[in-house]
């Protein structure tokens, strides 16, 4: 299949369809509405479930229901809508059913605006809701990667019976660029062996996040934590560019990472030894690789479209070994390469010589 010019939101939606999503439930919110609209068109055409729910709360709980039945289910929203889903996320994580959520982030806090942002980093990576868990969070930086990561998201969700986020921002959602869609995968024909299908010829199955007995709930948590450790072990993902001899490494994900790439190239052009580290999985954060880099680079510069959230993770990974600087824009402002370049140049000039 050849590359087509695709809008990010549409690509996210169509990728989910190709990945075999059986049910989509959502509520309109800019800047992800085209995703819902694409689903509104395509899902009924394909005989699959589509509901424009009465709210984000209803959406996520419909996803929860469909997931309990063993179907691939997803929803999508943007920042305020994601806040409303927090309780639902916690239930899904607690009952260990697979689900995929797309968050096309916008400026906040509050109603904020509809411009691109990355200020949901904390709320999606830390614990999107009460209780001890982290969803898997994947952050594409191009329309093609958005497609690939949506496909991956469904596979990871099924593999770990876990909640998986694909987080984009308004810019990626609205952007068009050439990308290639994978062929349609066949729908799963069989329901998994934990799914609710009616207790025909077998003992009833129960899916719940409730466990009044504290020792038993601690057991549940231990199992969940063990799973999270396994995910940390196996699912750290990132991309690197010009990292080999870099003294300064820019760390940015999604759109910010992509824009930083242009700045990094310019800096290289000017002779600075600068590289780019782009986390693809925000949780699990690719801390293994980053802390290895911390052994040999002179500084990190974190670039985000927020006031400094991934910054904590980079500082944790750096473990106090190298300085970690920050450049961020908020309120829906998208940094342009020129300003990131400035931040690089300023910091680079001040770099302590590690070897001296």
């Amino acid at each position, binding site marked *: 299949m050849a590359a087509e010019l695709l809008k990010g939101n549409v690509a996210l939606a169509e990728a989910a369809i190709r990945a075999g999503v059986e049910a989509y439930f959502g509520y309109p919110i800019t800047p992800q509405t085209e995703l819902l609209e694409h689903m509104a068109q395509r899902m009924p055409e394909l005989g699959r479930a589509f509901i424009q729910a009465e709210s984000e709360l209803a959406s996520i709980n419909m996803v929860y229901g469909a997931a309990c039945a063993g179907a691939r289910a997803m929803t999508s929203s943007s920042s305020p809508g994601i806040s409303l889903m927090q309780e639902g996320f916690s239930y899904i994580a607690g009952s260990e059913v697979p689900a995929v959520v797309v968050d096309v982030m916008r400026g906040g806090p509050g109603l904020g605006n509809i411009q691109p942002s990355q200020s949901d980093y904390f709320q999606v990576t830390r614990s999107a809701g009460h209780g001890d868990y982290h969803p898997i969070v994947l952050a594409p930086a191009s329309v093609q990667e958005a497609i690939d990561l949506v496909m991956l998201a469904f596979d990871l969700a099924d593999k770990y019976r876990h909640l998986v986020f694909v987080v984009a921002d308004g810019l990626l959602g609205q*952007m068009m660029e050439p990308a290639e869609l994978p062929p349609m995968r066949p729908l799963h024909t069989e329901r998994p062996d934990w799914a609710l299908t009616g207790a025909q010829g077998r003992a009833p199955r129960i899916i719940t996040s409730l466990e009044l007995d504290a020792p038993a709930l601690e057991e549940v948590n231990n199992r969940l934590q063990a799973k999270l450790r396994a995910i940390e072990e196996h699912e750290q993902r990132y991309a690197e560019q010009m990292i080999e001899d870099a003294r300064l490494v820019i760390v940015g994900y999604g759109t910010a990472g992509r824009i930083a790439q242009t700045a990094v*190239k310019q800096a290289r052009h000017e002779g600075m030894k600068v590289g780019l580290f782009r986390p693809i999985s925000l949780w699990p954060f690719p801390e293994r690789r980053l802390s290895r880099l911390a052994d040999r680079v002179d500084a990190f510069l974190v670039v985000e479209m927020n006031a400094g959230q991934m910054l904590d993770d980079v500082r944790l990974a750096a473990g106090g070994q190298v300085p970690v600087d920050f450049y961020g824009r908020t309120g829906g402002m998208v940094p342009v390469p020129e300003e990131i370049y400035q931040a690089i140049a300023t910091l680079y000039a001040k770099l302590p010589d590690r070897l001296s």
Partner: protein
Amino acid sequence: MHEEIIFAGFGGQGVLFAGQLLAYTALEEGRHVTWIPSYGPEMRGGTANCTVVVSDEPIGSPVCMHPSIAVVFNNPSLEKYEPLVKPGGLLIINQSLMVTPPSRTDLEIVLIPATEAATEMGQVRVTNMILFGALLARQQLVRAETVLTVLQDKLGARKAHLQAINNAALERGAALAQAQPVE
């Protein structure tokens, strides 16, 4: 080749479509390309801009502070983007809605009475194609033939009857641009 083009005007002027047409055509010609829109709060009549990057290499940033080309459809957009265009860059202006002429001298400036011309053609909605035609005449980002093929494709059967007037508008724009001396 690496060009960053901003199309800017108000909603309903076909600003976004002009940019998309460029993007589709660039893809057709095998280039790397990105297109991103930005809007004001209004559903109709607000600002509507888009940025298109066309390049021979994979594109990092799809946004830029200083575009190499700006096509401004109305006066507020002219005021906003004139100062931002890269020195030596190209600025195409819809003269029909211009209030104060641009003052920069380090740009290639093309004034096209696009709204008037479109109205003359009996279809004010082809203003965008006139400006697009003018752009291509001054900077061959893509080939005019490819534009026509792509346009045909995008209009599809349902809107095929609009092909002729769009083609004419592209040509009209090119003609208006060529008629203007390159400063």
